[in-house]
């Protein structure tokens, strides 16, 4: 393996890290407030699609913003159902995922070719030249966001309120905090970050939209959250690990000698996710009221 190989591996890893880290940080914010959103896979998928369309109309920045808005919209839908309407979080998440799969497949047909849509080069975000090669500026966003989230959760009053809402909603309610509103804001923000990650995939990274562009990344992000124990900085590390194994898979696939059938290479990120998650669980503690709707007595 030569130096250029290592550099390209690093570059692909960093690119693959972005959607997972952004989604995971968003989910950390939501889970800290007590909502478990498995609909993030759907949010990634739908915002990748919407972001691509936005980018074609108004350029890459508009695309990313459209992705964020769509992700935030799905987060808002999820949180309204699960705060004010006392819904079942898992089922809402499953519904959002099914809905997004249908909507994107449908939308791709409307755009012409079923199952595939190319994002024109002009609509893609320009890459930055760095010592390790041309990289997307979004990588720096993904590197900074976890630190801001960490600072927010550990150092600000709002972060403390978020934690209180997840751990002891009754106490927070008595202290005059609007539980449902806080949860709603947290999950909507989480959805917006997932939306940014989704739009990044189509606008900055892959350059096309397919029916399964999210490829389980939303769930891998959930696994990253478990790995991180709700610490955004560890989510950055986790995102990099999963990104690395994805890029390793891509790299092995391009090897001319084909040491392993590609199908097994493709399994790699998922197997690693399982191994990592089963390795860390037990030392991680989640908010007490995670996944339960808050009802006043």
């Amino acid at each position, binding site marked *: 393996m030569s130096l250029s190989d290592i550099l390209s591996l690093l570059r692909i890893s960093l690119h693959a890290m972005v959607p997972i880290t952004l989604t995971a940080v968003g989910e950390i914010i939501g889970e800290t407030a007590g909502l478990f959103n*498995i609909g993030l896979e759907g949010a990634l998928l739908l915002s990748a699609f919407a972001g691509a369309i936005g980018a074609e109309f108004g350029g890459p920045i508009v695309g990313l913003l459209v992705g964020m808005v769509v992700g935030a919209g799905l987060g808002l*839908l999820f949180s309204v*159902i699960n705060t*004010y*309407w*006392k*819904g*079942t979080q*898992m*089922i*809402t998440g*499953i*519904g*959002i*995922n*099914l*809905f*997004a*799969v*249908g*909507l994107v*497949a*449908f939308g791709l*047909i*409307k755009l012409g070719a*079923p199952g595939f849509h190319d994002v024109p080069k002009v609509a893609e975000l320009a890459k930055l030249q760095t010592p390790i090669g041309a990289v997307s500026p979004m990588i720096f966003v993904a590197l900074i966001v976890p630190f801001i989230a960490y600072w927010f959760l550990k150092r600000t009053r709002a972060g403390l309120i978020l934690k209180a809402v997840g751990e002891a909603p009754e106490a927070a309610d008595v202290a005059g905090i609007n539980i449902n509103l806080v949860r709603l804001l947290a999950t909507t923000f989480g959805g917006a970050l997932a939306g940014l990650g989704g739009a990044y995939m189509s606008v900055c990274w892959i350059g096309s939209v397919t029916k399964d562009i999210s*490829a*389980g990344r939303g*769930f891998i992000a*959930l*696994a990253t959250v*478990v790995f991180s124990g709700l610490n955004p900085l560890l989510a950055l590390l986790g995102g990099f690990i999963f990104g690395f194994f994805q890029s390793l898979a891509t790299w092995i696939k391009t090897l001319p000698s084909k040491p392993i*059938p590609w*199908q*097994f290479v*493709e*399994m790699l990120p*998922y*197997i690693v*996710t*399982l191994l990592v*998650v*089963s*390795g860390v*669980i*037990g030392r991680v503690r989640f908010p007490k009221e995670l996944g339960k709707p808050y009802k006043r007595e």
Partner: protein
Amino acid sequence: MSSEVTKSSSRLWRATGRTLTGLTPVLESVLAGVVGLLVGALLMWIWGYDPWKAYMAMFRGAYGDSYGLASSAARGVPLILTALTFSICMRAGMFNIGAEGQLYVGALAAVTVGYFTLPSGLHIIAGMIFAMIAGAVWSLVPAILKLTRGVSEVISTIMFNWIGRFLAFYMVAFILVDPLRGEKTISIPMSARFPILVRGTDLSYSLFAAIFFAVVMYFLLWHTAMGYEVRASGLNPAAARYGGIKSKRTMLMSFILGGLGAGLAGATVVMGNPPTYAVISGLPQLMNVGFDGMAVAMVGRNHPIGIIIAALFFGGLTAGGRVMQFYGSNPVPLEMVRIVMGAIVLAMSIPELFRMFPAIKKQGATLFDLLRRLTNRGSKEERSA
């Protein structure tokens, strides 16, 4: 005499009220179905389709004639089984999203019966057993990970879906491949195919396999001690543990039962669906059957009988959707069906959506009370009762 009338009519009212309360879950499912169809209609309208025509084509295609009904039932068969997979674990208080992957490995295992010969009936049974064992094994790993390492079954089953998918791609391409046609596996031999039930349609005797499995699950869950334990640990895990129920055993049991169902679903797809009787590269017949099963399970209220009815409905959506996508000058793509399914599941997750039913009942009762007072025929005991 007049008081007699009031008494009997009041009894009638109460009986109606009781029936209504008993029917609430059914009404909830129906309402969710309506909401889902309305969301679909709205989206179709936004995209410039005619929702009324599309739905007419869809429902006529699904239930309009015997061919449509048989196709709907044929689409519903695997859905019954994958829905049961989700429901059994849901009843035990867990979210098993792994039916999709278990279905894939089940279908692959069923294909292996093509490598040996057996008498016709035995061959079918062998295929079903292979598929069920494969599904159960695929389901067992997440269950064990949960029991020993505490890994959330949501994450592990989804990872196993992806692993199962690529395993299926590999098996179709290299191991079970048809030597003459590289894009599919070897075909199931005649002796291991489910006979066709309605001539000229896709509906085979696999329908009875699915219904039989559903009935067995109903019996297991509601008429055996084990089923009681499964349901109790789902309703209140702490109380169940306190009552001496071994939660680990029920957990393992529900995952195994679920895996058997999903595996069997894979067998019904490859052994019961003409014309290929094989797994095709890219898994077009298998894709999403496991996920759609979750929607069926929710609309069927996680009850085997409800699931059979809901599977007929969702099977009808798919079968009718295939008619819809070729109907008229501006046909609606089949993908609309999945949008409707997602909207139905979303609607199912909102309990507040259904709060209006007790409200309607309460208003009805007040209205009745008012009428009674106006006519001044109700006796005092009755009013106090």
